[in-house]
């Protein structure tokens, strides 16, 4: 048996083995932290606002004259988790097609952002919304009423996409 011993005890220096100076060193770090600025947030009162690059809940862009979405269904096709359902309808507007039904199942969504990447109209984008709590499976399926967000609130993300996409 020629195994080299490498225990904690062997690796420690003399001063470490004495133990008391190390306690003093540790306590000094603790006391130093008490006087340094804190990072902890008081969450419900104090909320974190993410930057434009954050991928939160996917939303639909709402412009003055209605939604941008033309219900092409590419987001639904590309979605790896099959979270999106789109049913198209016909309108009299220049863009003949609109989503009669647009539902995202947030229990299926994995926030990958593929839907945003594939969208030819920049109509579905990832928002900053990360507070997603549901009390039932039904409630987690978001319809157009909850998905459509006015474009003014989405400027950060649109700016991010313009620069980095």
């Amino acid at each position, binding site marked *: 048996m020629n195994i080299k011993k490498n225990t904690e005890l062997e690796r420690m220096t003399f001063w470490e083995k004495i133990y008391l100076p190390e306690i003093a060193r540790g306590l000094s770090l603790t006391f130093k932290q008490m006087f340094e600025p804190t990072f902890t947030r008081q969450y419900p009162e104090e909320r974190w606002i993410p930057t434009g690059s954050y991928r939160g809940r996917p939303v639909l862009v709402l412009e003055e004259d209605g939604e941008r979405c*033309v*219900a*092409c*269904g*590419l987001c*639904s*096709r590309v979605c790896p988790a*099959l979270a999106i*359902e789109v049913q*198209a*309808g*016909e309108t009299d507007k220049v*863009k*003949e*097609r609109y989503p009669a039904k647009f*539902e995202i*199942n947030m*229990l*299926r969504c994995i926030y990958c952002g593929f839907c945003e990447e594939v969208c*030819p*109209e920049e109509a579905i984008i990832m928002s900053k919304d990360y507070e997603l709590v549901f009390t039932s*499976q039904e409630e987690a*399926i978001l319809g157009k009423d909850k998905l459509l967000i006015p474009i003014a609130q989405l400027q950060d993300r649109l700016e991010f996409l313009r620069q980095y996409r």
Partner: protein
Amino acid sequence: MPQIIIDGQRVEAAAGSTIIEAAMQIEKTLPHFCWHPGLSVSGNCRMCLVNVGFPKKGADGAHEFDESGNVIVQWGPKLSIGCATPIADGMIVDTQGQRTEHAQHAIMEFLLINHPLDCPICDEAGQCKLQEYAFNHSNGKSRFIEQKNHKDKRVKLGPRVLFDAERCISCSRCIRFADEIAKQPALTFVQRGDHVTIQTFPGMEFDSPYSMNVIDICPVGALTSMDFRFNARVWEMSFTNSICPGCSRGCNVKLGVRNNEILRIEPRTNMHVNEYWMCDAGRLEQYSYVNENRISEPHLKGKHTDWESAIIAVNEVLQAYNSNQIMVIGSAYGTNEDIYATIRFAKEIAKTSHIDFLEHRDPAFSDEMLKLTDRTPNHNGAIALGLFTNQHESQAEIIAQKIAKHSIKVIIAIGENIASHPAFSNILGNVEHIISLASNDNETNKVASIVLPSSTYAEVYGTFTNAAQRVQLLEPAIATKENERFMGLKMSRWDKLGAYNDRWSQGEKRNSRPVWSILSAIALQHGHNWNYTSAEDVFESIVSSYTLFHDMSYVLLEEYQGLVLGNAKNPEAKKVVYESHLLKPQI
């Protein structure tokens, strides 16, 4: 026959045929928009330009060879279009070289100048020829930086067809179809250059009973169906091969299904029956009754019940009456399998000689092209299998007389809505039990004591025998509670991957069964084991017991696109099936 060489491959084709036709013989399709084998050649899209040459000959008429001994080819000064250039002996065609490719790139760039970028809105996206060739035969660049030309969108060409002028690439397929096939020359080009567009002649509208075929042959999304418009994307549907049950022609069709609902019906090429076309009536009428107004559970005296107790109730009725008081009314709407089971049921279980079916003739429906007077898809099957007591007595009046004459007490109506017929209205009151096997809610079910839900043509394997005695195969497109575990049932992503809590996969799965399966369950309850587990088993027993059906099988029916009764041993030669454009990749 002249021999030509296409990309180094020797092809022998009939004299007078064109390069594109010769290429199809070796399963090589030249890219094309305006050419269609069912229409005349117009040669205006220029997409099928190929490099054509002949071996160079010296002054003495002998071929010239280069140093390595190969024939020197004298290429043409310009490229030729494959769709209009007749082949000549010794012709050498290059479909993949640099010159051809350069021409294809140029044509694609040219066609895309004024084509709008509205693929996300367009119904054709996913099966569009322009998309396909933009991917396969284009360099993906455009030098056109000016404003695109804007034209009219949503122009009504007829009651069923909508035209988007911007998307049109002026291939003239629809114009030629209207002139040559629909025989209603209502469409024409107007204007010149990039303003060219398609219009109906003043005071005319394109309302031919075949008008919707232009939607299928349109290589882009310029012509759209007003019935289907924006219902679903192409890739969301599964397409299952089926046969149109609208009349006895038996046009081959594809059923587009999403969420267990038929959304559209398209023709499928079968050169022996319908070629490339189908009528608008078949397209529009033959899916709504599959989706709506269905009976989804067995009913006993108007109340829901399960299959077992319904079948026990049927047997109680059968045993309570004398066999000559029972009448079986089959249906020419059913498949051959259903009809065979009906006949066997009447002979072995009901032991009655009263067996008949109703003719459904509508002289107003027929025309010279595809539509036929006989509105049942399987009239010839019923005749061939013998679904009658006396032939030529399949009229409602004669059957009603029989019911009165023999004082029939039990009628088993299999897929036939007898109560809706005026001839039966006075007689059904004297009948004590009506057992109805029906797919949809109808008048007969209201007076029936037992209602058993049967599957429609879109939910079963089976065969129809059409007016030309051709036996053709049906495949199930829609899942029922019975057939949803079938291997090989084509399903869209929606139908395949949905879970119980997904709202997008809640298409109703009905508790219906094919007629042969219901009847063999009744037979089993009666103590007769027919040993049928699939429609193919029933068909095998038809094949073994009827000489007309000898040598047929589902595999052969699929391979030869149907076989003619009594002639299954020497089927017609298989033909190259041309499909203008399909969803790619195929799922």
